[in-house]
């Protein structure tokens, strides 16, 4: 088996995650989908690392994880405070930006 298949898998997961972001309304699920996309990327990075024979790809994946953690913390905080004020976790309810 060629390790390229990992890349196909990563692409597939990424696409599924992206589609999920678009069709789910629950902010928490949307966030999960984003995590899925990030993980798909991480997989790709790790495979690239293997492909090139150095560890830089893994480093990037590592950073991605850190950033994802930070993002999840802030994002969930936003969801919680949003839920507190509007009693809803729907992303569609946060549409004040329209005219």
């Amino acid at each position, binding site marked *: *088996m*060629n*390790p*390229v*298949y*990992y*890349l196909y*898998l990563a*692409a*597939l*997961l*990424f*696409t*599924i*995650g*992206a*589609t999920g972001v*678009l*069709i*789910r*309304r*629950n902010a*928490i*699920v949307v*966030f*999960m989908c984003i*995590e*899925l996309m990030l*993980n798909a990327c*991480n*997989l790709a990075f*790790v495979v690239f*690392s*293997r*492909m090139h*024979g*150095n*560890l*830089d790809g*893994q*480093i990037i*994946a*590592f*950073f991605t*994880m*850190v*950033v994802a953690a*930070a993002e*999840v*913390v*802030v994002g*969930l*905080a936003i*969801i*919680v*405070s949003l839920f507190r004020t509007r009693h*809803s*976790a*729907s992303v*569609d309810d946060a549409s004040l930006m329209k005219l």
Partner: protein
Amino acid sequence: MSPQLAAYTTSTGEAFQFWVLGTVAVLGALSTVFMKKAVHSALSLAGTMIVLAVFYLANGAYFLGIVQIVVYTGAIMMLFLFVVMLVGVTAADSLKETIKGQRWLALLCGVGFGVLLLAGIANASLKDFDGTGQANANGNVQGLAALIFTKYVFAFEITGALLITAAVGAMVLTHRERTERPKTQREQSEQRVREGKHVPPLPAPGVYARHNAVDIAGLLPDGTPSELTVSKTLRDRGQIRDVSAEALGDLRALEQRAEERLERTPIDPVDFKRSEEASK
């Protein structure tokens, strides 16, 4: 694992592992997206992540594989579950689309993007795999550490700053400072009177002391259930148990027995039958 795993071609074992776990990962991803309840989504995602951790290990990223399980699946996904618990269940859980055309556009874009991406990967000449054997010669963790603290030290420091900022930010966002005195009970009741709805306290759940579970709606005098008596979360989840029919059936039976004893003509057998059914 042995270094040759990370060589140009993979062993049959890895191939087998890939196909099995890959299928699991995809299914997990799909159910993350399509499960109706957020908890199920979270669990599916956790599954996918564990599979990915295994893949990391298979690709020679031992450190990341462990981190993925410990930090990601262990910490972050738990955070998700906590939030799901906090937020509870809302109407947003419904998979019904509210924006016109959104779903079709999303699927179209998704399929298009995916196909293109896959085509792109297929197109790229990715024949050469050096494998991580060389890089992991001194141990994967040591290799990573050497890089992080030399080449990527600035990025690492900045990431640290980011994490601190995120932590502070999360606290600021969720922290609620009372800027005004909380309303006293008296003020609350005055407000209720002024608004003219629910002047008395909300009715309690439970019917006739036969049922005292919180998920059973109280019955109004005509025998119909009152939504107000059940907590909103249960209502949103649709987890109300309606016992009104049973109560009405009991009433009918009681009345019938009274009729029989008083030797009057029995009333309306059809109604009776229905109430029997309902009570089953």
